[in-house]
């Protein structure tokens, strides 16, 4: 069974984002799917309470953008106390602020020898490599992730084993993934595979470096548009019509 997941934590995004994402999925997915929202404040039948046991590692003075909570959803089989309600075998995670242009069925039919994550093709590979040790310019983006049940449990195990170091060292979950679960020197050789060029682009950053870098441009021939943690989808008239 196919399952679409999102995460809503805190007040950055209100409930309408979840509803709009759910509506988008219903309007753009031609195969049956479950829908769940992992949240700290469950109010709807599709809501599932997020665990909090990593919160003790959050370092307030570091001002890191802390999206690590989405990794709880990888632990469906790891511990029966964690997220036991979530059904399904094929999982697709979507950030709350994405815009879906095309049928999500595509993602559920991908060959799953490896899990997928967004490869930000708009990144300059040279900048990515030269900033690797500085924990900047990550080429991957966890706004969309596709995996089969059990495929990402190893990430949760690794985080649990190294929680202090990971949460201290890496300013974002994407940066952590880039260091330990991707290989920007050998992109076919990493744990994650990047979604191919032409699938996912960024509203703010462009599409493919260097040939298609126009920003704030709708590309409806692509499957998903990312907004990178902005609430701008609510403010731009051109985008509202796509929700």
């Amino acid at each position, binding site marked *: 069974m196919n399952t679409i997941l999102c995460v809503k934590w805190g007040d950055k995004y209100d409930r309408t984002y979840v509803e709009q994402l759910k509506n988008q999925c219903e309007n753009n997915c031609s195969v049956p799917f479950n829908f769940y929202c992992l949240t700290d404040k469950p109010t709807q039948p599709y809501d599932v309470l997020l665990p909090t046991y990593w919160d003790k590692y959050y370092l307030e003075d570091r001002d890191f953008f802390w999206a690590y909570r989405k990794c709880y959803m990888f632990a469906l089989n790891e511990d029966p106390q964690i997220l036991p309600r979530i059904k399904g075998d094929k999982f697709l995670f979507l950030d709350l602020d994405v815009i879906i242009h095309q049928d999500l069925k595509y993602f559920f039919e991908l060959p799953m020898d490896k899990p997928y994550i967004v490869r930000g093709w708009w990144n300059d590979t040279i900048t990515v*490599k030269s900033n*690797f*040790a*500085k*924990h900047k310019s990550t080429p991957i983006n966890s706004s969309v992730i596709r995996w089969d049940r059990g495929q990402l449990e190893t990430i949760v195990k690794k985080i649990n084993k*190294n929680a202090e*170091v990971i949460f201290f060292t890496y300013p974002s979950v994407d940066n952590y993934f880039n260091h330990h679960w991707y290989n920007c*020197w050998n992109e076919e050789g990493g744990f994650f595979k990047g979604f191919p060029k032409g699938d996912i682009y960024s509203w703010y950053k462009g599409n493919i470096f260097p040939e298609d870098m126009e920003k704030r441009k709708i590309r409806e021939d692509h499957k998903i548009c990312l907004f990178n943690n902005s609430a701008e989808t609510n403010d731009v008239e051109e985008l509202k019509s796509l929700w």
Partner: protein
Amino acid sequence: MVKIVSEGQNVNLQFTPELANDWKNAMLASSELNAGNYHYMTRRVLDSMNASQLVSKLWLVEELVKLDIKPKRVAILAGWFAQYIVPLLYDNFESIEWIKNFEIDQDVKEISYKFNKRYKDSNKYQCSIKDIMMKSLEEDFDIIINCACEHMYPMTKFYEWNPELQDPLYVLQSSDDDQYDDHINCVKDEFHLAEQANIVDIKYKGSKKLPNGMTRFMVIGK
């Protein structure tokens, strides 16, 4: 052989034809790693060779010499290209048999091997890609050098990963300069560095103002 001698100190870097050849080839290799007109690796190599980098490594070796340390197997944590520290150690300590540099940046490895080809070819130097805060070294060393403590989690985690190490001597350097994003673990002074790294048997501790204006702290001990 030309000896580059540290001012007033009993430490030298021997500028030999072999070193000149290796360094020339390393610079050439770094200049070939480019994108368009942007020689991204050359910039990084030049940063790694500035006066402050040399001064901090000379200081380290000077203090080890004064302590009459006889190192045999040396681990360098996050040693970057290691073009200064490796020859400085071999030139000043006849006892050294093996130096291994643990890095996370895969671009570093190839250039580091160019700089230190003479040692690599004689099985005296290796560069390993490993996150030393999440994995064990898996071999024994009698000296652990970390000149990049400000870039990583406190050394206590390293000890947890390496309980099998046989009472090594630690040589640690760090900084109070927190203006850089990747300086994630700055310390106030050398006392703070020793306390954070749980160095209780302190053989040396001190600070030094580098040519770039940055103050570096160093602690040597167990």
